[in-house]
């Protein structure tokens, strides 16, 4: 079993293909995210809260949209046989799909996270929220990666939707939970950026989840008897 792509150039073309196919819709989401960032930057508590909520919702929606349209819908709309008829191995398609979706998601994700961090660090807002923002952002990224890996590895639309819904329901409790962690909560209103062992541990856990999800999806994909 070969886990690697056979042709990096071909994988690049598959990524570019997905990017071109979904860039218009992505531009719409990016527009919405910029609007939400603008609301956060307005400074008033109400607009800031509304902007933060909108950012969170849009980040979740853009992730679901990317997975549904580029993985699940491709199966349903039967464009997968076309892609598989190209000179590619199943693992080329796996890496192409994984990296294309990461690229599609990381554009708005980095825009939001970068924008939020810039807002926090350049305005009067307490800088102590930086670790909290990083943990929540990384949780959203891990959430997306696990959903994506399940969608690539498992053909069943029902299981994919179930996984996405379950993971989405974890976001609220996670945000609540880390806000209650003393080593994180006590710095939220200060200007001190403190990376406590607990925060670093959670961050490492999130990265590990992403890595494990990718490894398992690759392992499952490489053993599939059929690629349609």
């Amino acid at each position, binding site marked *: 079993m070969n886990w690697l792509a*056979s*042709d990096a150039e*071909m994988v690049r*073309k598959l990524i570019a*293909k997905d990017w*071109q*196919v979904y860039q*218009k819709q992505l531009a719409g989401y990016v527009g919405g995210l910029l609007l939400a960032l603008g609301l956060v930057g307005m400074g008033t508590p109400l607009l800031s809260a509304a902007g933060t909520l909108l950012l969170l919702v849009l980040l979740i929606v853009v992730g679901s949209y990317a997975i549904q349209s580029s993985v699940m819908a491709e199966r349903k*709309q*039967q*464009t997968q*046989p*076309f892609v*598989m*008829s*190209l*000179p*590619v*191995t199943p693992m*080329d398609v796996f890496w192409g799909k994984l990296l294309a979706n990461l690229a599609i998601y990381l554009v708005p994700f980095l825009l939001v996270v970068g924008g939020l961090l810039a807002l926090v660090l350049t305005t009067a807002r307490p800088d102590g929220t930086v670790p909290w923002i990083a943990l929540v952002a990384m949780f959203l990224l891990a959430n997306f990666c696990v959903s994506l890996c399940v969608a690539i590895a498992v053909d069943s639309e029902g299981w994919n939707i179930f996984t996405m819904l379950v993971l989405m329901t974890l976001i609220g409790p996670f945000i609540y939970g880390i806000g209650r962690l003393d080593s994180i909560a006590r710095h939220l209103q200060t200007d001190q950026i403190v990376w406590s062992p607990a925060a670093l541990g959670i961050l490492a856990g999130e990265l590990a989840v992403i890595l494990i999800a990718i490894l398992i999806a690759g392992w499952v994909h490489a053993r599939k*008897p*059929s*690629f*349609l």
Partner: protein
Amino acid sequence: MTPAIALAGVRKQYDDFALHDIDLELPAGQVMGLVGVNGAGKSTLLRLLMGLVRADGGVVEVLGQRLPQAQVAVKREIGHASDDMRLYRGQSLRWHMDFIRGIYPVWDEAYAQDLLRRFDLRPQQALGGFSHGQRVKAVLLLIFARHPRLLLLDEPTTGLDPVARGEVLDALAEVLRDEERSILFSSHNTADIEQVADSITFLHGGRIVASGDKESFLDRWRRVLCRGTSSDAVRRLPGVASVRDGAPLVEIKTGAFDDTTLPALQALGLTVEKVEPMSLEDIFVTTVRGSNNA
């Protein structure tokens, strides 16, 4: 000369269907028609040849290379179209042409433009607005314009109106002028197969029930109408696939018609009234019914 396709003892098991010990060879430069009813295993066989499905056993060689190990090299030389293959609805045909051109350096833009005119396709139109016939022609354009050595076409004319079907078959006929090119063409429409194929394989219930060149198929099979009464001895004659007693005439369909057939029938007390050639469809139906009864 290396055959375009060589399958030996190929098996594939699904929950409700199995492909059994398929041995098949397509010589280079030949057109083989793969005929079978829906669910006979035609698509599975073609997917095995594309490396899209892994065989449970046996050897799959395409253009002299083993699959799935050499699938990337092999797929560079194969054009594959199937009726369950779709292009991206939101993208134009021109976008698809540019995408394929970026992958295959042999892309022939002049030929692609010629096919656009002949198929009456608008390159800037999004695929979502194409009819089924236009979609099939678009897929074939993307394949033909890169001049593959082997074409694997899975039911390419299914669902097409007569005009589109004629255009597709004309384009195929033109492709066939290249003697180096091999084609495996699956269909349950025997008229299309009869029009383009050099050899024919009947697939039924996941097994090859007959395979040979088209002319010998058509030469071997005859419908013989006799006067008299049929007997088990008639049914046991070599090649007899069907005997229908409709007094006073007996209809006998045989797949081994030769100089000895008529004397053998006469020796069994039958008077031969008429000997007719059979259409490929009739041969196929008779063969399939024979294999069901076996």
